[in-house]
């Protein structure tokens, strides 16, 4: 009974994570410029990876594999914002002008 619930829960995590990754990919294709595309990529690198790794951890149970997956998750959550920041900063210093909506000029 409990094992069945864990399987259902981890499958739900994996499916939701897969949906978020597809959404992120659609966003990267759909959004108009580099900076807005970074936000769409942000979906895949935060909640989508977390859900997929969480689903795999539930499948693995209390084993050494779960610990390694947890380490991967921590590593991704610490390095991905640094990479995003480096990319946007490089784009900004390369004089790429962000697209700005006329309605909310600040």
């Amino acid at each position: 009974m409990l094992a069945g619930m864990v399987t259902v829960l981890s499958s739900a995590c994996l499916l939701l994570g897969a949906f978020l990754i597809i959404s992120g990919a659609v966003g990267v294709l759909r959004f108009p410029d580099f900076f807005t595309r970074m936000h769409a990529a942000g979906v895949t690198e935060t909640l989508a990876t977390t859900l997929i790794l969480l689903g795999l951890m539930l499948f693995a149970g209390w084993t050494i594999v779960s610990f390694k997956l947890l380490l991967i998750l921590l590593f991704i959550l610490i390095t991905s914002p640094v990479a995003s920041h480096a990319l946007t900063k490089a784009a900004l210093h390369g004089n790429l002008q962000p697209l700005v909506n006329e309605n909310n000029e600040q």
Partner: protein
Amino acid sequence: MKHCLSLAFVLMVLWLGNSGYYSPLLLSLGAFSVVFAVWVSHRMDVVDHESQPLHLSGHISFFYCWLVGKIILSNIDVVKRIWLGNKSISPCFARLPMDQKTDMGKVIYANSITLTPGTVSMDIENGTVLVHALTAENIAELKGGEMNRRVADLEL
């Protein structure tokens, strides 16, 4: 000294968690590697409050719980806007003040901004951070300053 001990503890957990073999030979090799790595990093003078931020570890777990909630909410918002299309977004950017005193606090704040989808920190200069956001509401929320205040509280 306490920074060296904390580094040794982290390395020990990493070894035990990643090896999965607990024979005396491999455990003694692990102990040797930990001691050697701590000695080398101590000689390189990289074991300090920046590489081992012990003073943060008390309050930071509450901050992470709050941040996870924020990340989930902003993910839902961004995914909604992806499927609604380009008409639903209004990209903009603004320069926001940072109340953090230390470099560590500024890094945590800028990384937290980037971790929540919908906002990306672009540049840090003279105690301000340049933020690009997917919608004007995202900027308005950051201007409310809750995240800024929470990160500044971590430094105390």
